[in-house]
């Protein structure tokens, strides 16, 4: 049973990330990257119950990178930005460069090391990932994977890892391998890319000109409608950029250059119950949980801020579906609401209110144009977006127990970058547990230990707000 599921999953892993070009948004992030302040690096920490056999892990990585070709590809930029960057096989790929192991004496040390690894920039001429196995983390071990956003966003990274892990502890002998037929383009030449991009650009120029003329003609005949719709759009942009709460003085000054990783665990079922009670989703509960922790932190420091700006992810599809079109946006996170259920409801209201903003996709709309301009223009465009105090993100992880080279996965924490925020929090659902990874800008927080304690209390508060299972009517297998 497990074996068949594994094969199906591995099959879809092979099909993952097959597009040869970066999308306009990926291109923008890629060209505008200024690590670590404007970073696109995601780090995943996987707690394992024991140190896996090193040879078996290397062999698994050899197989996995063969299955998912992108892990052996690099981004090739055209010499001038006339075309999108392209993925091409790296002829010099060497697994030894990307995968290594180290020894530590405690989990804290591993977390500190992981933050240092994340802060170091990638070699942009090689495949954009790096894995380190830490041995000596208590009885077990930890696998730390650093991955670039262009290769996979946090959701894709968690999916990729869940796909590559196995449903059983023992070795699977004849695992599927990638079809050589679908092998990606061989190494691409930057000059060729630029020239062919220019050629396509010139070939489509008449069409573009015609379309522009048509749009202008349309605008000329209905000037009022065009002006009104432009103003409404501009108003929406302004609301999205300015109407969230001002940043908290307790979470400054931010440099974005000192990352500190924290991990927290919570049982998933009570979180889902509290979410339901507040009429919200797990995403809303995650935001409410973080706000609960920050509320305590602010209260202890004598601050009575009513709200702080929080970055959330809004699905552009139906709100309750797990669609795959997401946009980041800012809400005013309530910091004054004590009751966790009420806080979830308030967060829910803020998040759903974003659906009235027609400018939610503004950066997507602007990305193709920005990509034609020098990269510093794109970088500053990304910076103009208002900056939250905290980003909060929820990601679905594996629903059941998984193994990596014979070691059981006990927790999977995603540590996102800090693009101007003081905290980035990712909640990953792993089986029946919520694994919460927190990246903190250490320069912005006066008392890191206190913040960690407050966040842990925020978790307890949410979990205990749900009626305990003994209070509920017993429903079980008879």
């Amino acid at each position, binding site marked *: 049973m497990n074996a068949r599921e594994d094969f199906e999953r591995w099959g879809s892993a092979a099909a993952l990330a097959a597009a040869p070009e970066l999308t306009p948004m990926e291109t923008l992030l890629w060209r505008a990257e200024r690590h670590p302040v404007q970073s696109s690096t995601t780090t995943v920490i996987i707690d394992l119950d024991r140190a896996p056999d090193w040879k078996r892990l290397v062999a698994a990585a050899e197989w996995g990178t063969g299955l998912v070709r992108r892990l052996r590809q690099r981004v090739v930029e055209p010499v001038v930005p006339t075309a999108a960057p392209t993925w091409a096989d790296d002829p010099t790929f060497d697994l030894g460069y990307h995968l290594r192991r180290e020894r530590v004496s405690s989990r804290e040390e591993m977390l500190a090391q992981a933050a240092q690894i994340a802060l170091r920039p990638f070699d942009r001429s090689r495949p954009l990932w790096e894995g380190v196995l830490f041995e000596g983390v208590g009885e077990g071990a930890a696998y730390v994977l650093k991955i670039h956003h262009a290769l996979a966003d946090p959701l894709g990274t968690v999916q990729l890892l869940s796909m590559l892990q196995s449903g059983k502890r023992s070795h699977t002998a004849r695992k599927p391998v990638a079809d050589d037929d679908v092998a990606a383009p061989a190494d691409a030449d930057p000059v060729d890319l630029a020239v062919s991009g220019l050629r396509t650009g010139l070939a489509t120029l008449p069409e573009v000109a015609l379309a522009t003329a048509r749009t202008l003609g349309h605008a000329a005949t209905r000037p009022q409608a065009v002006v009104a719709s432009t103003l409404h759009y501009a108003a929406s942009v302004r*609301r999205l950029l300015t109407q969230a709460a001002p940043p908290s003085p307790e979470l400054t000054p931010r440099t974005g250059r000192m990352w500190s990783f924290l991990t927290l665990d919570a049982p998933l079922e009570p979180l889902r119950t509290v979410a339901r009670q507040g*009429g919200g989703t797990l995403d809303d509960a995650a935001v409410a949980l973080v706000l609960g922790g920050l509320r305590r932190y602010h209260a202890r420091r004598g601050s009575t801020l009513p709200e702080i700006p929080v970055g959330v992810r809004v699905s552009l599809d139906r709100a309750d579906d797990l669609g795959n079109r997401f946009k980041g946006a800012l809400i005013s996170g309530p910091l004054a609401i004590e009751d966790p259920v009420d806080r979830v409801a308030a967060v829910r209201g*803020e998040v759903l209110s974003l659906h*009235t903003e027609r400018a939610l996709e503004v950066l997507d709309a602007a990305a193709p144009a920005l990509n034609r301009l020098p990269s510093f223009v794109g970088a500053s465009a990304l910076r103009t977006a208002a900056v939250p105090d905290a980003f909060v993100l929820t990601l679905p992880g594996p629903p059941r127990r998984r193994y990596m080279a014979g070691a059981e996965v006990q927790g999977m924490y995603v540590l996102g970058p800090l693009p101007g925020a003081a905290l980035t929090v990712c909640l990953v659902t792993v089986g029946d547990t919520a694994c919460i990874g927190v990246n903190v800008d250490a320069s912005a927080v006066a008392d890191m230990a206190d913040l960690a304690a407050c966040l842990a209390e925020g978790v307890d508060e949410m979990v205990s707000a749900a009626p305990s299972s003994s209070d509920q009517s017993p429903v079980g297998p008879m």
Partner: protein
Amino acid sequence: MSGLSADAQVAIEAIEAGPQGPSVGAFFDLDGTLVAGYTAATFYGDRLKGREVSPAEFLRTVVTAVDGELGGDPTRIAHVAFSAMRGESEEAFADLGERLFRSKIAGTIRRESRALVLAHQRARHTVAVASAATKYQIAPVARDLGVEHLICTRLVVEDGQFTGATHGPMLWGRHKASGVRAFAREHGVDLAESYAYGNGYEDVAFLSSVGHPTALNPHRDLRAAAARLGWPVLDLSDPVGGSLVAAGRTAAALAAMNSGVVSGLAYGLLRRDAREGRNLAVKLATSLPMALAGVTMDVQNRERLWTHRPAIFVANHQSSLDIPVLGALLERDFTIVAKKEARWDPRAIVGSVVIDPAYIDRSDSASARATLAGVVERIRAGTSLMIFPEGTRSATPVLGPFRKGAFHLAAQAGVPVVPVVLRNTGELMRRSSLVLNPGVVDVCVLEPETDWNEDDMSERIAALHTKFEETLAKWPVQ
């Protein structure tokens, strides 16, 4: 059918089919939802007309309003208005609210919104108006709709004067949502089972607080959000031409009633036949105004109105409209019993001239008995009697207890009782409402009951009461 759109009918049927009782809440936004347009604009227009607005305040208001439209803080306009009210008398402002309600706002109440409110009241839900407006705008509307609870922005009053400040935040956007949640906690309302109706883009948080949100005549950004969130959208028709036309129609109807009476009586004088003159006057005085106000009737079992004359017609009483409706139904040879005090009521005086009612002095039982003996004589002589056995108009659509008087008269005069059930006169012209809305009145004439006597009278009255209730709860399909 009662003249409601199919969509409104479906919404009402869903309310009827859903859970009943006060733990279910129904929250209605005011501006754009219960009433078409903005009550604040009506108030401001009045201030402008009264030249109470300095050019500087006017300019400030316009600039703030435009800024709010263009993505600035939309609540600032209200605060500009509130601070301009500093020093004004609360009492005078409340009077202004009443005056503007009568002259302008009453006519902008949407008929189908009224039907929705009524459906929730029938289901014994806890109905509240939730609005960023002040109680001076809301209270007259709520009273007209029979809504008890207001969740609204409260202005600070000291020594009977406004200070220009508000108690807490203006209940707009997220604050309206938190106001509704707090109200639900206080009143034991289960939000997951509750309903909310709103039209503005800022109402998303408010609507998302309940399990059954409806975007009612939504602003285009809310319409887009509702489509994304899968919320039902209900488009109700606005009062025809707004207040002016509705009020105009009502005025025309009143004029027609009077001229109908005059011409009918004049005809009677010319022909020297008072009875025929009276009958013609009734016909003109009831059918003319109803036609002008756009009220028609859908009558079931109309033949029963004629098969048992003379008879005592008993009907339920919700509205001032009931009398002209019954007049139009009975057409000729009938009268009413009224309390003595009503003789000098200017609203009833026209009717009293026409149908020559029997006035009863409730304070003097001997004279009352004498009057009733006279009534019995008139019935035996061929004049039917119309009586509302509830005694008075019921404040809610709930049927009140029946008094025995009508049935004693039936026993004494030896005539049958013809029960007439009126369904929705209260929707077309609510108790204490000054505006008659166009629409179709549903009438159902039940089986006439003969052979009344004192022995089993109480049981038969109770059985008839039940028949009324059943007919109102489940309207017979023709």
